[in-house]
């Protein structure tokens, strides 16, 4: 109640509203990361009441998660990194004239999962934070391996091509300076590659530019994508909501638990949630072609991760991402000490923040749902207007990250790669998965082997990593078992025939 007393003060409500609107805009525009926006606004908050400032900055953080799905669904341009997974089914739904339900489900999933994340933060923060401390390099390696095993579920028609795409992603993640030895790897004499290849460049190039190039094969005269007609097609149906029940739950839980782990990231959470949803779905063969659960699960995970990420930040003083690192800096600058005593020493701030997140999530749902029909009208734009717009957004998105013309050249390169992958039937999602997880996985493995003085047994003797690695192996072997079974049945049928 103390928290709501703080959060419901008119001035704090206004700051919350400003934060979520800013966050939504930042999330929609590719390349504008919430961390950069929060960093830019930080100096302006020194004159503010710390509770109000924290409420606004947190609003930007989780507001961006709502906004990121909009361009992912409409234009196949991921607004922020975790929205890449939403592109897989969200844009396909738009191509089938179901952009409205896709946007609506994304907003509803975000609301439900965001609320679950806040509940988790409120109820289980301290004990969960202590459990997260049990995670060390072997457990992180196992988590990344589990994430990579999801490639099996992103494979499409050819498992070999999916694995090859993932290996290319691992290679791209190695480009740059090795963090342990400062050896430069695969830079081809280009100094700009010393800092590696930014994920945003690859994602926007492969998905957005690649998609536009593929669409440009035909000189379309009419509208780009079917525009939803009638209210029925502008919002999710009751059937859609029923189909997504498990996706909401799966995404909320997975997103929150992975968010608690510093450094794991919402992209990993989105991929794992998508993979789990696909594995248990009765229509798993339709994933990637526009199923509503394929939007609900990753969006839920993406938003629930916000609540999880605040757990180590507030209870241990450990930031798990660039955005939470800036929030930590803000708290320290205001004179607070995030850590085990933060909640007991600053109950008004903590509970005010928690209450504002409930309110902020509700604000985002109220803001975003009515805007769905408006956003869907973007699809009315003819191809000769929309495709150049996507090119422009992509270029601005990439340039705003690094200010480097070289990165724009890389964007064009990834765009061509994305187009060729489509022509040759190589799935792009496994490449992104390899790129996102490769660096962290290598670091975790090498740190683990340093801990064990070169012995791989450390991965099997620690219970959490052993369980996750076994799960990853099982996920990888299941398609092989299924294939072997199918061959055996075919052979039996031929013998009987």
């Amino acid at each position, binding site marked *: 109640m103390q928290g709501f007393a703080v959060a419901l003060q008119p001035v704090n409500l206004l700051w919350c509203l400003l934060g979520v609107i800013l966050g939504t805009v930042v999330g929609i525009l590719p390349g504008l990361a919430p961390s950069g926006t929060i960093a830019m606004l930080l100096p302006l908050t020194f004159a503010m009441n710390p509770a109000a400032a924290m409420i606004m900055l947190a609003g930007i953080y989780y507001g961006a998660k709502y906004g990121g799905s909009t361009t992912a669904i409409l234009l196949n341009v991921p607004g922020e990194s975790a929205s890449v997974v939403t592109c897989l089914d969200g844009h396909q739904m738009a191509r089938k004239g179901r952009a409205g339900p896709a946007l609506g489900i994304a907003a509803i999933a975000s609301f439900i999962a965001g609320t679950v994340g806040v509940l988790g933060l409120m109820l289980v923060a301290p004990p969960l934070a202590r459990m997260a401390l049990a995670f060390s390099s072997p457990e992180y390696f196992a988590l990344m391996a589990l994430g990579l095993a999801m490639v099996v579920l992103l494979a499409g028609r050819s498992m070999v091509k999916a694995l090859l795409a993932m290996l290319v992603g691992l290679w791209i993640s190695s480009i740059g300076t090795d963090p342990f030895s400062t050896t430069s790897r695969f830079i081809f004499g280009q100094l700009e590659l010393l800092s590696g290849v930014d994920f945003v460049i690859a994602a926007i190039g492969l998905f957005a530019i690649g998609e536009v190039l593929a669409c*440009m094969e035909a*000189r379309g005269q009419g509208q780009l994508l079917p525009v939803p007609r009638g209210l029925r097609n502008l919002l999710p149906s009751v059937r859609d909501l029923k189909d997504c029940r498990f996706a909401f739950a799966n995404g909320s839980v997975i997103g929150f638990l992975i968010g608690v782990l510093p450094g794991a990231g919402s992209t990993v959470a989105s991929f794992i949630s998508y993979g789990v949803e696909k594995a248990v779905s009765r229509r798993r063969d339709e994933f990637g072609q526009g199923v509503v659960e394929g939007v609900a699960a990753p969006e839920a995970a993406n938003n629930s991760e916000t609540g999880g990420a605040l757990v180590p930040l507030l209870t241990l003083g450990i930031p798990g991402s660039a955005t939470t690192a800036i929030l930590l800096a803000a708290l320290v600058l205001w004179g607070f000490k995030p850590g085990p005593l933060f909640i007991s020493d600053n109950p008004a701030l903590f509970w005010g923040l928690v209450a504002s997140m409930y309110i902020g999530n509700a604000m985002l749902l109220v803001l975003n749902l009515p805007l769905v029909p408006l956003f869907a009208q973007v699809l009315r734009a003819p*191809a000769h207007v929309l495709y150049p717009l996507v090119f422009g957004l992509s270029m601005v998105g990439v340039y705003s990250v690094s200010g480097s*013309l070289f990165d724009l050249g890389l964007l064009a390169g990834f765009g061509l790669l994305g187009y060729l992958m489509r022509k040759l039937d190589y799935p792009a999602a496994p490449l992104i998965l390899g790129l996102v997880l490769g660096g962290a996985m290598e670091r975790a493995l090498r740190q683990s082997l340093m801990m064990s003085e070169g012995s791989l047994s450390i991965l099997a003797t620690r219970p959490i990593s052993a369980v996750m690695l076994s799960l990853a192996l099982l996920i990888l072997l299941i398609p092989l078992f299924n294939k072997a079974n199918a061959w055996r049945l075919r052979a039996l049928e031929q013998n009987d025939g």
Partner: protein
Amino acid sequence: MKRFGTPDFWSGLALAGLGTSIVAEAAQWEYLGQDGPGPGFFPLWYGIAMAVLSLGLVVSSVLRQPGVEDPIDWAKARRAFAAWLALVAAVAALELLGFLLAFAALVFFLVAVMYRRPPGVAAAVALASAAAFHGLFVLVLGVRLPTGMLGF
């Protein structure tokens, strides 16, 4: 009946080449040092995996029955490559022309040449797009975009 020259054959061959070159590069770096695995450890293993899997793809494409693989319509790809080259040219011109002019030129090309719209329409779309980007990103959001020799 064996078949060479299919898309899987060539893409598999290219990836086998990439995998082999990754292994060759990784072999020059430290594999295992005093402090643990070196910079060559991870690349060596995924390079080997890439080379093996891609050679498997090459072999399976050769052994596959003809007609099993969907043909790729490369004739349509000409338009896509033209659009891509236009994007590359716009990126290359950024330093000289700046974002606004280079982007406007790109839009003009796409609308007038790729979509065969009248030059007036193409010019209007190009100008409107450039102005909208300048207004939203530069003026409202304060994002810095590349400027050319003319100062914008």
